[in-house]
């Protein structure tokens, strides 16, 4: 019986949106207030949606204690109360937009998913990241494949 479960987590962090590939003027135009050189912060929310079958004995689709540990290890502890640009290696080279932050959370979870939930366990269907109530980004499993293909291209 296929079912989806969603669990929401939160962390607070600061960031600055500034691309080294753009001029200062272009950065100001592109990112507006988010380009403030001193940075600013958000209470981020990350909702993870997993899909799988309900275990007939436990009635559960996923061991929530394991999902909580994975979330804590992969993005809550590393991002909580951090300056994302300065303290998270991925954002020394990519701009910590909601999109890139979502992709980083997604990448970290997928890299470690099979260690926690071996084949046949629940799969990660969606990462939804909320920077504010009005600014939400979704990364679905399908989009993830599309992004990987796009990233592979320059190297080939």
């Amino acid at each position, binding site marked *: 019986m296929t079912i989806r479960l969603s*669990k929401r987590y939160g962390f607070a962090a600061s960031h600055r949106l500034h691309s080294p590939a753009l001029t200062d003027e272009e950065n100001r135009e592109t990112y507006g207030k988010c380009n403030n050189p001193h940075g600013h912060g958000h209470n981020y929310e990350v909702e993870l949606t997993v899909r799988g079958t309900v275990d007939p004995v436990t009635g559960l689709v996923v061991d929530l204690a394991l999902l909580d540990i994975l979330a804590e290890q992969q993005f809550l502890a590393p991002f909580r109360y951090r300056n994302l640009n300065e303290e998270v290696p991925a954002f020394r080279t990519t701009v910590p937009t909601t999109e890139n932050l979502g992709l980083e959370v997604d990448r970290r979870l997928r890299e470690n998913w099979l260690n926690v939930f071996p084949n046949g366990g629940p799969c990660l269907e969606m990462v939804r990241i909320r920077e504010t109530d009005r600014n939400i980004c979704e990364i679905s499993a399908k989009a993830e494949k599309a992004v990987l293909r796009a990233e592979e291209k320059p190297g080939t």
Partner: protein
Amino acid sequence: MVISKRVEFSASHICRSAQLTDAENERVYGPAANPLGHGHNYVVDVAVEGDPDPVTGMILDLKRLREILEDKVLNVYDHRLLNREVEPFDTVVPTLENIAIDIWNRVAPHIGGHARLYAVKVYETSELSVEYQGEI
């Protein structure tokens, strides 16, 4: 096209499987395994799919949907101890997953006309939800 309606109920439950030992139950369900039970304010989003009726402009009369949910779900679940008072939870563990499946089974046969049941999403807290779309 999908339209959804939200209803709420409060109920208590105990998450323990008869097929697991006490230690296993406590590991699997954590505090939810408390044999004395605990409760939640559940929020249920019921989504129906279909084309709007050319005359009424509606997929399904939402008053009718409200009546179905009152009759088949809220009257059965609200302010109950699910394990003792709601079948099938005398034998099935009333996890959020099994609650969503049971609500689907109770509602689906009563959605007719232009509409079919599309999804049942149940929130146990604002942080935790389950969505069931029937046998896919």
